[in-house]
């Protein structure tokens, strides 16, 4: 599979103040590869450097050091060519206040060289996709937050980008609107096959949308992988709680595939596995065959939030894994 993004050794430092200059090293040597057609998430706490990384990859910002290739084009030398094929949508979207929805779409369409019928057809399809028809003549500053976000997404698809950057696309939106936006991102991606790079600190969003995720903290990528991979990396698995009578053989538990950890006390047992739904059946069968009578079995699935908490605990620990 070809790579949409190749970044190596990206370092970015911001300087502020005239008199006593303050230095903040935001990115500390980022290596990243994103395959074409992927939805790739950058997850991390506030101030981790997510937006800075996205801005560099979208050519809005130049790094101090490192190399970037976007869609096979050198990001440091030929940003203009890259900008033909990428676009961006951000949370807390801002466009010229007094322009209406349709005027904003026309203006940005023209920035990408669209004119005449081609532009109007493109706008019409995006207006339908994002359900903006009733609001075409409404000035930007009178739109609700959700509508602003939908307009921002529509604008970001005007040039049929090969690579789309989404910077916290659902930040500040209520759950219903967020769900709708995520659905639209997913369906657009499915229809076009474009590569999407999104930043978020919403774990559910990352898990729902992303094929792979990079955990970013304090300017460093701590791990990259699928949501499942990342759970395995931090050994934060799903939990199976069993109430039983009789005996459970610890040797058998240790031999079982997918078991990460366990604890047994009196007639209850907690077993941590990589995938509760997959392991619960074989586990129950094995324990029953070993002489335990299972009274109850409950599953407690972990999500990326637990993984996130684990990563956030100790930035110094170099898990250093990339799957």
């Amino acid at each position: 599979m070809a790579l949409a993004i190749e970044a190596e050794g990206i370092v970015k430092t911001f300087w502020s103040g005239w008199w006593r200059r303050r230095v903040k090293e935001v990115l500390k040597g980022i290596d990243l590869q994103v395959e074409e057609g992927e939805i790739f998430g950058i997850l991390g706490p506030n101030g981790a450097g997510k937006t800075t990384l996205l801005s560099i990859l979208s050519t809005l910002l130049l790094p101090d050091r490192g190399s970037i290739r976007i869609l096979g084009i050198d990001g440091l030398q030929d940003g203009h060519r890259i900008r033909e094929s990428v676009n961006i949508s951000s949370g807390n979207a801002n466009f010229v206040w007094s322009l209406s929805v349709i005027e904003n779409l026309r203006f940005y369409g023209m920035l990408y060289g669209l004119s005449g019928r081609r532009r109007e057809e493109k706008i019409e399809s995006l207006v339908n996709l994002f359900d903006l028809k009733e609001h075409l003549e409404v000035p930007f500053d009178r739109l609700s937050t959700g509508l602003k976000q939908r307009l921002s997404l529509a604008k970001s698809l005007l040039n049929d980008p090969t690579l789309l950057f989404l910077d916290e696309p659902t930040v500040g939106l209520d759950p219903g609107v967020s769900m709708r936006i995520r659905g639209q991102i997913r369906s657009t991606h499915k229809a076009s096959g474009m590569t999407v790079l999104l930043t978020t600190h919403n774990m559910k969003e990352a898990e729902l949308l992303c094929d792979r995720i990079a955990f970013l903290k304090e300017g460093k990528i701590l791990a990259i992988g699928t949501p499942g991979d990342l759970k395995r990396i931090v050994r934060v698995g799903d939990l199976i709680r069993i109430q039983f009578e009789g005996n459970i053989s610890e040797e058998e538990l240790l031999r079982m595939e997918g078991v990460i950890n366990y604890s047994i006390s009196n007639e209850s047992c907690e077993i941590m596995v990589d995938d509760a739904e997959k392991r619960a059946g074989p586990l129950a069968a094995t324990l029953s065959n070993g002489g335990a009578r299972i009274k109850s079995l409950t599953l407690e699935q972990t999500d990326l939030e637990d993984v996130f908490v684990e990563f956030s605990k100790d930035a110094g620990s170099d898990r250093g894994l990339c799957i």
Partner: protein
Amino acid sequence: MSLLNFQKTLVQIGAFAFKNWIITRRNFFSLAEIIFWPLVGLFSVGLLTVFLRLDESMTGFILIGVMSMSLIQVCQIDVAYALLYDLWAKSMKHTFIAPIHPFQLISGAWLIGMARSGLVFLLLSIFSGVAFGFNFFESGAISLILYLLGLFLIAVSIGIGVCTLVLLFGYKAEVAAWSITSIMALICGIYYPISILPSPFPEIARAIPLTYFLEYFRSFYGFEGRINNLLLRGFGLIGLYLTIEAVLLRWVIHHARKKGTFIKLSE
């Protein structure tokens, strides 16, 4: 450049003209910039010439100054608006993630600036004729066109300067959009010949193209200046400044990409 690329470039230039046009059409204050302030300027100075009982040629000398300042101010503010609207709306990054060149941004806004300035010229010419008996068309079509072209080029030069300052200093620089023209007018002898200015201001005035275009146009109304080749000097200087500014603006945009200005001004 292929035909397709050329068409695309025109559309991109048109985008900035479209934005400025829509905002001008919708905003009352924008209309005030075209009608209210230029007329206030014309009448306040024109009535002063009546009160002072200045003769016809001296009235013309001063009204040419008023006209020049109004035209430059209206045209240059449109060029500056190309970035100022994005600055105020915090939408800078959406403009600069698009595949545009700085000259497209400037020239699209400049087109609307020239159209608005042209309207101001017509309006002020009519009122100058009716109220003060001064005819701006007396110099002839070619000299009038050259004079207006000079003013429009000065305006685009100031507008680029404002855009450059905005990209360097952000909100702190927006005041430049309203102050540069006034300072320039003061130095270039808008209501008086530069010879009355104390040193070193006459020398500074000679480095500013407006001095030559004012003197050129006034020469058709009986004010023969002491400087030769006025148009050559005026257009030569403006060419030099525009070349320097084009290089500077490109550098400033590159610098903005290094410093994260587009991100900061979009937050």
